[in-house]
């Protein structure tokens, strides 16, 4: 029986331990100048390049897409999406350093794939 209590204890600790990350503080020292894409709308399985220009020191860049995939890192990344990601998708760019972070989003429409044959 002790083993079962131990197991339950471990599981509870795991649940408690898996809490969400805290948001970073906004920074007045960082400014996103532009966030642009090369192709929009983009056909499913095709690629568009997204580029961010920001001012600040020792900047780092983070990227999240609500649907689809991001390849690469830094100031310029490639975005692509499959057929199931059709629609208006949001790509969030986070620029941060030791003083805090700022973020901006760009909307990219993914249209259905069609054969070019």
């Amino acid at each position: 029986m002790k083993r079962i209590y131990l197991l339950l204890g471990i599981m509870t600790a795991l649940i408690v331990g898996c809490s969400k990350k805290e948001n970073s503080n906004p920074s007045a020292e960082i400014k996103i100048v532009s966030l642009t894409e090369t192709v929009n709308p983009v056909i499913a399985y095709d690629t568009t390049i997204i580029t961010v220009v920001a001012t600040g020191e020792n900047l780092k860049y983070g990227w999240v897409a609500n649907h689809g995939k991001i390849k690469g890192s830094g100031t310029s990344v490639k975005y692509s999406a499959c057929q199931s990601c059709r629609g208006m998708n949001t790509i969030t760019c986070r620029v941060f350093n030791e003083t805090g972070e700022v973020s901006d989003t760009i909307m990219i429409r993914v249209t259905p794939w069609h054969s070019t044959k």
Partner: protein
Amino acid sequence: MYRRKKYLLIALCLFIAERAFSQCCTLGDPFISDAEQPALQSKILTASLAYRYSHSGKYYSDDSRFTELPFQEIAYSNYTELQVGYGITNWLTVMTDLGYFFNKTLTTPGIDSYKGYGLGDLGLYAKFNAFSSSRLKLTLSPTIGVKFPTGVFDQEVDNVQLPISVQPSAGSYCYLANLFVSKGFRKIALAGFASYEYSQLIQSENFYYKYGDQWIAALYFNYRPWKRVTIDLQVRNEYRSKSNRENEEIVEASGYEVVFFTPQLSYAFKHDWYVSAYADIPMYKYYNGIQMSFGYALSFRVTKKIDFIALKARHSANQSNKSELGVNMELSNELKQ
């Protein structure tokens, strides 16, 4: 005792029911659930460790292979899961499982792959022994359960979040209910399994997505050619309805129906150790829109059963044997004197 062993062996074959792998819509961890086991007897504990390799690569549109895409992608994962079940009473068994992905990878030739890894979701289940007759060799076990999104869902590489398809967690609570029925005959047993799963909406800062409901129906044929060896043949139909995204928009290229054939070989070792190996082979696939389809999966499982009542009885017998031995020795000493 043999009946119990036989049911446990049947149960081993029912562990696996893999969610089909579609490119952007894969739920967190594979659906390797105790839910398909019959309820355990009171004070019996089973603990098992499973390993699973699954592989997907072919795109499907409706029920046909889709080859027009100008690239090739392969998705594969190496997954392990610890599963523990305990019979609190003869009618209630509680079960839990927790998985870990060594990798969950999506790769395209010539391009860096996406690789997620880490803890999967924690499952908790209550299984009821609604009906069990040793005379009829019939069991009926309904189950309810929940999967907690305890696993890794926001994994990043170089500050770039990985796509949902390679995140180890489903990102939301999943609720399930199922029913397991087993009918034994002399050397064979037939079993049926029906399951429904509801996935809650994933609503976070970056994601808004709801997986479609899942239905599973399975038939099992269980044959024991030798005392310790069991062969299982399973045919399973998995259906998942379409997903929803922002503004209640239906994701047309989501949802599927797959019929699997799962052969399995199990061996019962001494001291209640069980080992089994099985494969999931899709026989029929239907995917809405264009999606990456499930390829195959290979699994192995080691299970240990502990019967606390038997242990206690053995311990008591040992104690009485020792005291009996002590009395006999005293008598023999007295006689010698």
